[in-house]
């Protein structure tokens, strides 16, 4: 993520971050988003958004 992209996102979200802290936030987001941007989304199966383990199924399939 470039600083310019970070500023674009800040404008869109109506969020202000002091200029001298932008590089730190940019680094935090770049690191966090790296695996997301590397994802080929077509290769991942459908999923549920929350982690829950079904009591009945849990013993056999380890929570899937």
């Amino acid at each position, binding site marked *: 993520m470039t600083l310019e992209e970070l500023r674009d996102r800040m404008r869109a979200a109506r*969020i202000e971050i002091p200029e001298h802290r932008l590089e730190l936030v940019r680094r935090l987001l770049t690191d966090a988003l790296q695996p997301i941007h590397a994802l080929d989304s077509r290769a991942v199966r459908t999923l549920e958004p929350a982690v829950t383990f079904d009591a009945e199924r849990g013993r056999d399939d380890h929570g899937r």
Partner: protein
Amino acid sequence: MAAEDLSYATIRELSSRLRRGDLSPVELTRATLERIERLDPQLHAFVTVTADRALADAKAAEAALARGGHASPLLGIPVAYKDIYATRGILTTGGSALLADWVPDADATCVMRLQRAGAVMLGKLITHEFAFGIQFPGHRFPAAKNPWDLDRMPGGSSSGSGAALAAGLAFGALGSDTGGSIRGPASFCGIAGLKPTYGRCSRAGVLTLSWSLDHTGPMARTVEDCAYLLEALAGWDPTDPASSREPVGDYVTPLGRGVRGLRVGVPREFFFEGIDVEVEKAFEQALAMLRQLGASVQDVQIPSIQAAGANMVIMLSEAFAYHEHDLRMHPERFGEILRERLLAGGLITASEYVQAQRLRARLRGEMADVLHTVDVLATPTSPKPAPTFTAVYDPEYGFPRGNTSPFNLTGLPALAVPCGFSSSGLPLSIQITGRPFDEATVLRVGHTYEQATDWHTRHPKV
């Protein structure tokens, strides 16, 4: 038993002495309160010491012991709670100026369960601000210090819980863990800490950081003590939407069964990146000990493990959603570092959040596959020992990559156990992770290793 030994006694030892009558809960509580009064001014583990409440609880425990028939091993045991657990009538700050005066009108479920088991409430333990920030110099609440080296952090966010246990200021504590906040402090402070399976212990009445990643759990000086605490904590809670109805097992009895025949998997990718040489050496020695105790150890592959970074995307997004109103209305009441981390969450797109959840599903599936072939996973808990405050306060210090967050993403039970010391005398730790709701095996492996070593018997000079 000398006063110092009493401070580091285990729950089993204390429970036995309390039942025999050669120690009373009131004596034990007074001795612990005196130690807190003497040592906490330099450690800052406690935000609030509830001395009157502790003595009242101790007297009630004494009466219950005199009556007989109370089976709980926690009866009369002094414990303390991370200050994000609501406590009825007692200040609950979340380590934040925003809640500096909040007095809840109900106990968190975990607090209620430990109190019902007869535990004595010593007070509230400092947490990193809203379990995510850091108390920088000048913060309303001073940061807890690591009893092994006061210039170093005790880890976080359950910083006070780790510091108090390492210094012998409590016999059990509650922590919470969204990316490693139970296991990190356990690792840096040389104690045991268990993040149970997601849904095993209630989050009701605990301040939220990230709904789908937050876990509550016990911290103590031994694995067995964690097991005692877990037995009181675990179980369905209708007031927590994520709470599981999975039956609660016996966590203490199986501890003595050893590890002969158990299969330990070691995922080498990701967990050894940037690792300290001394951490790696201590970890390999721990594996050798597990082999010697009869376990088989093999390397395993988790193909999508690099996707573990998705934990941060989910945590930032959910934390922003939780705090957005206060961030926009009262930004000045958040510490600078926490405010920026939370605001960063507001810059993540909906698509990125959803993709992070999809990566999470893939990682869960792969870990489930691996846990068909081995009984537990073992990794170093932290790649490095505790950092100095000077390092962490440097504006260039980034958010450290940890070995704990993959198991928040997957919800699996994970335990931190001491496995050695660095040459500079700092604790090192091994992390044992198991199948969903198989805390019994995780604790059994940790306990067997712990009892074959003496790391847990060493204490800092405070």
